[in-house]
C-alpha cells in the first residue's frame, strides 16, 4: 500500500499538538464559560468533562492500534467495505474541515474584536490559514515539531495569564458549591466533551507514531494536561469576574486585560494573543494535514500535498460563509449546535467502526493488520 505520508512523530509531539488543539477553544472564545448558568461551579463541569473524555480517547487509540499502519480513513474501508468506508472517511474529512473553518473564523473574529476592528476579517483568516497550510504541506513531522516547540511558549503565556491577575482574584466567588445541583452543569460539561471529541484526529496520527506503544499513554496525558489547564483557567476566571464571567466574548483576553502589577506591568494582552495565534496556527496545521491526507486516502491519490492549499482556501471560505456574525459563531460553538454535531460525527463514526470490528469478530486480514 502506498504511503501518502511518510513522516514519524513521537509521543510527546502528539501530546503537544493535542494539548494545543484543546487550548484553542479556551483561550479565544471559551464556549463552556459562555454557557454557564451557575458560574461558581464551572470548574466542576470542566473536570467532569475532562474525565468523561478519557474513555473516548482510549477507544480511538484502541481501535487504531488494531490497525497499526492504517489511518482511520483506511481501516474504515477495511471494516465497512469500500463504499460505506469511503462515506465515513468523507464525513470525517468534512468534520476536520469544519473545525479548520471555525478555528480560522474564531481567530479572525478575535483579532478584529480585540485590536483591529477596521481590518477585514478575511485578512487574518487568509494569512493564518496560509501559514498553517504551509506547515501542513510539509507533513506531520513539521506539525509535530511546531507543536513540541510551540507548546512551551503557549504554556508560559497561559501561566502568566493564570497567575498575574492575583490581586483581582476573589476566591469566595467560587462558593457556594453545587447550590443549584448538577443539572445546570449538563450543557457546559457537554461542551467540554464535544471539544475533546475533536481528538478523533488521533485516528490519523496514530500510524505515524514512532512508538505505537506510547499512543494510549500520551493521548490520555494530553486530555488530562489540557483538562488541568482548562480547569485552572476556569477557576481564575470565576475568581476574577464572578457572576459576570459568562458575559465575556473572550474571557481569557479580558482576563489578561485585568493584569496590573504595581502600575507598571500592565496592558499585556499581547500574551493572550500570542497564545491564540500559536495554538490556533498549530491546530489549523494539524487539522488541515489530517483532512488533506484523509481526502487523499479516500480517493486513492498518492500525494496529499496538492490538496492542502485548496482545502485551506475552502475552509476559509466556509469560515466566512457559515457564520453571519460573531454571535452566530458563539451560538454555533454551544452545546446544542457544535456539541451535538461533534457528538454525532465522532461518536457515530467511532460507534459504527467499533461495532463493525466486533461483528466481524476476527478483524479482517490485510497487510499490517495485527491479529
Amino acid at each position, binding site marked *: 500500500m502506498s504511503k501518502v505520508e511518510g513522516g514519524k512523530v513521537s509521543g510527546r509531539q502528539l501530546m503537544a499538538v493535542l494539548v494545543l488543539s484543546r487550548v484553542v477553544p479556551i483561550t479565544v472564545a471559551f464556549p463552556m464559560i459562555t454557557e454557564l448558568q451557575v458560574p461558581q461551579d464551572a470548574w466542576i463541569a470542566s473536570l467532569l468533562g475532562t474525565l468523561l473524555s478519557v474513555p473516548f480517547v482510549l477507544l480511538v487509540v484502541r481501535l487504531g492500534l488494531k490497525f497499526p499502519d492504517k489511518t482511520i480513513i483506511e481501516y474504515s474501508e477495511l471494516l465497512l467495505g469500500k463504499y460505506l468506508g469511503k462515506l465515513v472517511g468523507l464525513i470525517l474529512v468534512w468534520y476536520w474541515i469544519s473545525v479548520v473553518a471555525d478555528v480560522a473564523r474564531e481567530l479572525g473574529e478575535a483579532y478584529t474584536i480585540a485590536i*483591529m*476592528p477596521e481590518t477585514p476579517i478575511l485578512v487574518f483568516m487568509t494569512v493564518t490559514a496560509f501559514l498553517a497550510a504551509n506547515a501542513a504541506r510539509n507533513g506531520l513531522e513539521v506539525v509535530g515539531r511546531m507543536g513540541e516547540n510551540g507548546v512551551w511558549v503557549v504554556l508560559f503565556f497561559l501561566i502568566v495569564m493564570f497567575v498575574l491577575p492575583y490581586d483581582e482574584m476573589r476566591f*469566595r*466567588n467560587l462558593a457556594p458549591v453545587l*447550590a443549584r445541583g448538577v443539572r445546570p452543569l449538563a450543557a457546559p460539561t457537554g461542551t467540554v466533551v464535544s471539544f475533546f471529541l475533536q481528538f478523533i484526529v488521533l485516528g490519523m496520527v496514530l500510524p505515524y507514531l514512532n512508538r505505537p506503544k506510547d499512543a494510549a499513554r500520551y493521548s490520555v496525558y494530553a486530555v488530562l494536561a489540557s483538562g488541568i489547564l482548562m480547569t485552572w483557567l476556569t477557576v481564575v476566571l470565576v475568581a*476574577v*469576574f464572578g*457572576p459576570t464571567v459568562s*458575559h465575556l466574548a473572550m474571557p481569557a483576553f479580558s482576563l489578561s486585560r485585568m493584569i496590573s502589577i504595581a502600575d507598571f506591568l500592565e496592558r499585556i494582552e499581547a500574551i493572550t494573543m500570542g497564545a491564540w495565534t500559536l495554538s490556533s496556527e498549530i491546530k489549523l496545521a494539524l487539522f488541515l494535514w489530517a483532512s488533506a491526507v484523509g481526502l487523499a486516502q479516500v480517493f486513492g491519490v498518492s500525494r496529499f500535498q496538492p490538496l492542502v492549499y485548496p482545502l485551506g482556501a475552502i475552509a476559509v471560505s466556509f469560515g466566512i460563509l457559515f457564520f453571519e456574525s460573531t454571535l452566530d459563531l458563539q451560538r454555533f460553538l454551544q452545546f446544542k449546535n457544535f456539541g451535538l454535531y461533534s457528538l454525532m460525527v465522532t461518536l457515530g463514526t467511532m460507534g459504527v467502526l467499533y461495532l463493525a470490528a466486533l461483528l466481524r469478530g476476527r478483524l479482517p486480514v490485510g497487510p499490517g493488520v495485527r491479529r
Partner: protein
Amino acid sequence: MLGKRALRAAVLPLIATIMATATGCWSRREIETIGFVLAAGVDEAQEEGKIQLTVLIAKPFAIGAGMGTHGTTEEKPFWVVSSTGYTVFEAVRNLLSQSPRRPFWAHNRFVVVGEEFARKGIGDVLDWFDRNGEPRRRAWIVAAKGAKASDLLQTEFELERMPPEGAMGLLKAARTGLSTVGEDMLNDFLQRLEGEGIDPIATRAEIIPRPQEFDIRGELKREKVGGSLRLTGAAVFRDDRLVGWLNKPETRGFNWITGKVRSGIIVIEKPGEEGKFIGLEILRGKSAFKPEVKDGRVTVTVKVEAEANVGDVQGFTDFIKSPELWASMERRMATVIENEVQAAVAKAQEFGSDIFGFGAELNRREPKKWADEFRDRWDEEFRDIDVQVEVKARLRKSGLVLRSTRIKK
C-alpha cells in the same frame, strides 16, 4: 531549470523588500493622532434623554512645558471637553467634532458620575466601558457629591500637574493611610450589580472651592482654577441607583466589616481626664462576618481584630505606672470601632442597600435557605437584620517615650 532558479533569486529579494517596507496596516494608530483620556465623567445633558460625557485628555506637549527654568504653570497639561449623546458611545464619537486627536481610552482611570445623574441609575452608561476594547475594567467608579461630574473633572491639585494622577495619589493614600474611602473598580461594580445579596459602592468625592483672593507664591497661577478635590467616604448604590452617602467614619465602619482597613487614626477620649484626647494609629485590622439564620431571622456576627499603636497623647500620662489605663484605652478603642461598624450598618439599612454582601455570604453558607427564604425578599429582610459586633482591640506600642513630658506647674 536555470530560468526557474534565476526567477526565484529575483522574486525572493523582491518579496523581502516589499514585506520590510510595506508594514502599514488598516488599524494603525499613530501616537500623534490620539489623545489619552485619563478620566471620564457622565452627567445628564440639558436635552431630554441625553447624557453628557466629559473627558479629561492629556496634553502631552504641555507636560514638559512648565518644567523649565521659568517654572510657569500657566498652561494646563490637560484639556477637559464635553459632548452629548443618547448613548455613551454616541457621545464618545461626538467628541471627534471638537477634539482634533482621537480620544484613546486604554488609560482611563476614573469613571465619574454626577450625583443627580447617579440617582437615576448608571447601569446603562457602564455598558460601553465594559463592551469596548479600549477602556478597561480597572477604572475606578467615583460619585461626585453635590456636584456634576463635569465640574469634578475641572478640579486640580497643587502637587500634581495631571489631576487624575493626583486623584490616584489621593485614593492610594486614603486607602492605605486612612481607610476612609469606599472603592469599587468597574470590575467589582459590575459583579456587585449582578451578584445576589450584594450592592455596589463607589468612591465619594467632593469639590473644595478655591477662595479667589487666596494667592500666595507657589500656587497655580492660572486665571481660572476649578478648585480641588477631596475624597470623603463612599457612595452607596441600590442596584445601579445612587441612594446615599457614607461619611468618613461610616466608611471606615464599612471597611472594618469587609476587611479593608489597613491603617488610620482612632481618637479616643483619655480615660479619667476630660477634654484630653489620645490618637491611636491602626496597625492592622482583621475581620470576618458570618450571617446565620435563627428561627427564620438573620443575624450577622461581625468579628473585628484590630491592633494599634499610641500615636499621641494629651495631658501627662505614664503608661508604665498605670497598666489599667492601657486596658481602658483598649476598651475605648473597641467601642469606637464598634460604633463605626454600627453606624455603617445603620446607614446601609436605612438606604436598604446591602453593600457588605451579607446576603451573598448567606448564599455561600446556606444556599438552600437563601434561595428558598431570602433571595426574593432580601431588600426588606436586610433592613432589619440584627448585627452583632465583637471587637478585639489590642494596643501594642507607645512610641519612643514611655511617659509624656510633665509640664511643671
